[in-house]
């Protein structure tokens, strides 16, 4: 069972988030006003960087990388041996993914990503992190009881026979999980494979969708 607070809103299908504290809205506005009035910040540059991470860079970037690795063995080897080079081949950006490591899930090892100290995350391939990844429940528990967190909170069972390997991104390397290619996908194109790759599967807290799903 996945634990979700899924009080569905008919209007947009999104969870309702608590209203922003008025004080915070005022402080942010004051900060921007002050910086702009002094000529130190261009509000249009804020719009521009927000647009990159709200509309252009997200898990679809990583999904394409994974699909190519599944389709092209030579690319997969380059991705594991020299991730920066392989990602550059695909035109992937580098901010918050300047020095990448790609870890491969196998029949023997299941990799999981976390940043216990803050919330370091590979923005270049996954976009900005979800709230749960940044939350202290995830950061505190995943390192100590990863199997229980996966089972109880993400609905993912890892067999006892497999090693669970946690990667705590406590330095400036950024990680991405290369999930295992689902069975029965031999006939799919790279584009079709990319559709199966979920954000959670590239963090190690989920599996790719199956071909039939």
């Amino acid at each position, binding site marked *: 069972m*996945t*634990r*979700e607070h899924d009080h569905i809103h008919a209007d947009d299908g*999104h*969870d309702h*988030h608590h209203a*922003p504290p008025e004080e915070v*809205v005022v402080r*942010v*506005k*004051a*900060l*921007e*006003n*002050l910086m*702009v*009035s002094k*000529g*130190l*910040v*261009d*509000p*249009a*540059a*804020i719009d*521009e*960087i*927000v647009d*990159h*991470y*709200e509309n252009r860079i997200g898990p679809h970037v990583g999904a394409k990388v994974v699909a190519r690795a599944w389709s092209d063995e030579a690319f997969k080897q380059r991705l594991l041996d020299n991730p920066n080079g392989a990602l550059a081949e695909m035109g992937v*950006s580098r*901010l*918050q993914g*300047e*020095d990448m490591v790609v870890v491969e899930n196998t029949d023997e090892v299941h990799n999981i990503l976390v940043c*216990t100290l803050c919330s370091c995350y590979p923005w270049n391939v996954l976009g900005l992190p*979800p*709230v*749960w990844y*940044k939350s*202290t*429940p995830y*950061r*505190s*528990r995943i*390192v*100590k009881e990863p*199997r229980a967190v996966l089972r109880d909170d*993400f609905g993912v069972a890892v067999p006892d026979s497999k*090693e*669970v*390997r*946690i*990667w*705590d991104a*406590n*330095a*400036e*390397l950024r990680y991405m999980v290369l999930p295992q290619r689902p069975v029965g996908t031999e006939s799919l194109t790279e584009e079709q494979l990319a559709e199966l790759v979920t954000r959670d599967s590239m963090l190690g807290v989920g599996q790719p969708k199956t071909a039939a799903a």
Partner: protein
Amino acid sequence: MNGIHDCGGIDGLGHVTVEKNERVFHDDWERRIFGLNWAIGMNGWWNQDEYRHAMEDRPMMDYMRDTYYEKWLFGIERLLVEKGVFTREDLLAAGALDTQSLPAGAQPAMSVEKVPVIVRDGFSYRRDEAAAPRFVAGDRVRTRNINIKGHTRLPRYARDKIGIIVVDRGVFSFNDSAANEGEERPQHVYSVRFTALEVWGENVSPKDTLCLDLWDEHMDFAAEGTSK
């Protein structure tokens, strides 16, 4: 510092709550502080780990209360004041200003044109300096028992533990000294593997492992003896 930000292994913080169909930003103020973080940061008034420390070094309950982007706001306000860029009064007074536009001739550190370059290239902390590695893959190391009041990237749960160097990642700026002393002190960073048994004791899977990225100054050779 042994703050609540260093939460790996703490019990009692509850279940992970996964939000369905989560938006990238939940409110417009989150967009603004996200962008301000970069636009202000580009002025170079502080380094990344001074900023991290500014967000961590505060009463535990305040850290727990604030959301992720509220922590960014807190850290930025604090550093602007501490670095003497603005006073607290300047910030408070700015709340009464109408929406401002950029003064003619201003050249902000982050222009619209610079944004795609920042996104494309990022800011690597890898350094070209020729620092000799202290360790090689396969070495058994013991992490130091670091309990400084300043900033460290060695989490509490991984201190005074025996691990194995898995791979040398090359030379990087040292975040701890950059935050605490304003010195990069470039040195090798290694991925180091620890067994869950070594870190947590009994009642964990004997198969499971944890890997952290540690700098030369975080470790010493482990004395002979047993690790789990």
